[in-house]
Each structure stands twice: as C-alpha cells, then as structure tokens.
C-alpha cells in the first residue's frame, strides 16, 4: 500500500488524493502529469496501464475544466489500483503522451484523440482509430449532436441501374 504522505512528498502538494468506494484517486495538475505517471511507474510500482479515457465535463455544475483525462494504473506486484486524473481545456487540449512509459498507451491515446480531440504530444502515430479517416468531428464531445452532422449520409448512392 502506497502511503499518501509518500506521494505528496514525492510529487508536491498540488497532488490531491481522494477516495470513492475503495478507489484511490489522484488529481494532478496538467503540467505535472507525465512526471507523476513516470514517478508512479518507476518508484511506486504501478507498472501496468489499464486504460486511458476521458470525460467531457461540459454542463457539469462543479466542473472547472472542459475535459478530464483519466489514467487507470495497476501494480502487478501488490495488485493495487490507482486512478490518476488531470484536466485539459479548449481550444488546445494537449497532454504529453505516455507512450514512452507504456507501449500499450498507443491505441488508448488514439481512441481518446478520436473521440474527444485531445492531442497527445509525442505520440508516434496519432490518427483516428475507430471513426473513418475522413471524419472531421469528435463524436464523444457533448456539444456534438447524437445523430451527427450528416456524416453518415455522405456516401455515393448505388442504384440498381448502376450496379
């Protein structure tokens, strides 16, 4: 069990720890996210990246930022789990890529980029992973309409006479 005091001593007092239903959560300033994650991996044994995901906090009452990006970590030796959370804002939602720490972050960051438009600086191949390449919007943003903006109708029609 990693002590909270050790984390704060290592990463500074900006790190806020909270607990919700046995989940330990660290809220980290955007500028320190790579330092915190690499420190957690190298010094605290959180050597597995489970997932990277994001939340669009538009219209949330108590939200100060537009997006929160969430890293789920796991320690393979102690089976401990940790949720690390940071925030980015429009118009330039950018984060450093954690691909140098975990190779598995490759597709996870591509998915977050595809759905939310958050760019990860230093990612080797940041392109869309789920949506078609010619898709221009970021569909999981909350200001994107559920039924799209006509992208799904933008195909040539094959009639029986042409086929």
């Amino acid at each position, binding site marked *: 069990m990693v002590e909270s005091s050790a984390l704060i001593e290592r990463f500074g007092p900006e790190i806020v720890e909270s607990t919700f239903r046995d989940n330990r959560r660290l809220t980290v300033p955007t500028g320190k996210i790579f330092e915190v994650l690499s420190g957690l991996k190298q010094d605290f044994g959180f050597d597995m990246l489970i997932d990277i995901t994001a939340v669009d906090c538009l219209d949330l009452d108590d939200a100060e930022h537009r997006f929160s990006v969430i890293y789920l970590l796991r320690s393979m030796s102690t089976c401990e789990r940790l949720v690390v959370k940071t925030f980015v804002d429009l118009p330039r939602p950018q984060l450093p890529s954690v691909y140098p720490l975990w190779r598995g972050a490759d597709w996870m960051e591509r998915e977050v980029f595809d759905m939310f438009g958050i760019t990860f600086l230093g990612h080797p191949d940041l392109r869309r992973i789920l949506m078609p390449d010619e898709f221009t919007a970021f569909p999981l943003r909350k200001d994107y309409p559920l039924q*799209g903006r006509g992208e799904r109708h933008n195909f040539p029609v*094959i009639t*029986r006479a042409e*086929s």
Partner: protein
Amino acid sequence: MAVGLPENVFLTQLDAAANWARSNSLWPMPFATACCGIELMATAASRHDMARFGAEVMRFSPRQCDLLVVAGRVVMKMLPVLQRIWLQMPEPKWCISMGACACTGGVFDTYAVVQGIDRFIPVDMYVPGCPPRPEQLLTAIMDLQQKIRESGSLMGREFKAQTMPNGPPPFDPDELRRLKGLPILPDRGLANSGHQFGGELPIGQYTELPAAGGPAHG
C-alpha cells in the same frame, strides 16, 4: 402440338426457364454484422433448412453469389465495404435487408449507424423484426423467388433502360451497323422512319434523372 409431346417435356419461354432456375438456386452472400446473423445461421441450419428453397449455398466470396443478405446494422465505416461487395457480385443479383437495423437503422439512431441500407444500395426484400424469426426470412426468400419468377431477372443495364423517364429506347435494327461503323441503309431503320416505336428522340441522346441523394437532415 402438346399432344405429341412425350412425358416430362414442357414447352416454355427461355426467360421463364431461366427465371425458374435462378429463383430456385439463389446463392446467398451473408453480410451478418449483428444478432440477425445468428438468425440467418439458424435459418440455414437443419431445423429451418434453407436448402428446401435452394438457397443453402452460402458463399463467402461475392463473386460467387447472387443474393446479398444484409443481416444487422451497418455503420458508416462499413458502408463502403458493403457497397463494394454489392458491386463485386455478378448480375443478376438481389438483396434482402434483414432486420430493423438494416432496413431503418433500428434503435441505433446515432452518428455512426446508417439509417437503412436502401439509402445506398438497392434492396428487393425487407424483413422486419428485431431479429426476425427464421420463418420470416424464409418468407422473404419465397417472396423473392416469386418476384424473380414474375418480374424476371434484369441486369442493371436493362433496368436502367426500363426506368428511364422517357421509357425504354426504341428498337434499333441498325444497332450492330452503328457499333461496327458500317453505313446505315436508308429507309430501313425504324428509328429513322418516323415509325411509332421511335423517331421522336435520336438514339443515344436520352437524358437521365439525377441520382437521388439521401435526405439532408440527420
């Protein structure tokens, strides 16, 4: 004349015989993307047995098929694949849209799901249901067989000629001569003589309807 025919010999038209053979040997191309595909498999399996209708030869190459069964929702990233498969199938060919999702998009009215494949490829039979029972698919196959026997099997070129706004182009007895660049004999072609089958419009200058696009909303 029929009195003189021996047993098991029938007189018919060549078109009718070809349609009879085609309708009883449909080779489906399964395009199963969702739970409708499970029902499609159940229809092909022994209990419902699509082989009773001659449609059991599922081929996974569109080059060998003449019946596209779209079973399940189609997302916009999949639609170019579906269109390509349809274009790869040899003529004559038919399409069954199986299930609510393939017909209308179903409950998946989201940015990624195509709201009915008939917006983008031609469809002959619609099978409602979520998913449809195998009996419903069998009914669609039987209806399609009926349609093939009654309306014939048209190539796209023939279909285009029949559905042009001015009707099919008039019969041109000099077509071969035109194609080969041979001189056209005067007073011979119906199209040149002001006959009732032609003469109003010169051959090969018909205008086509603009391609129908999908609705702009959504």
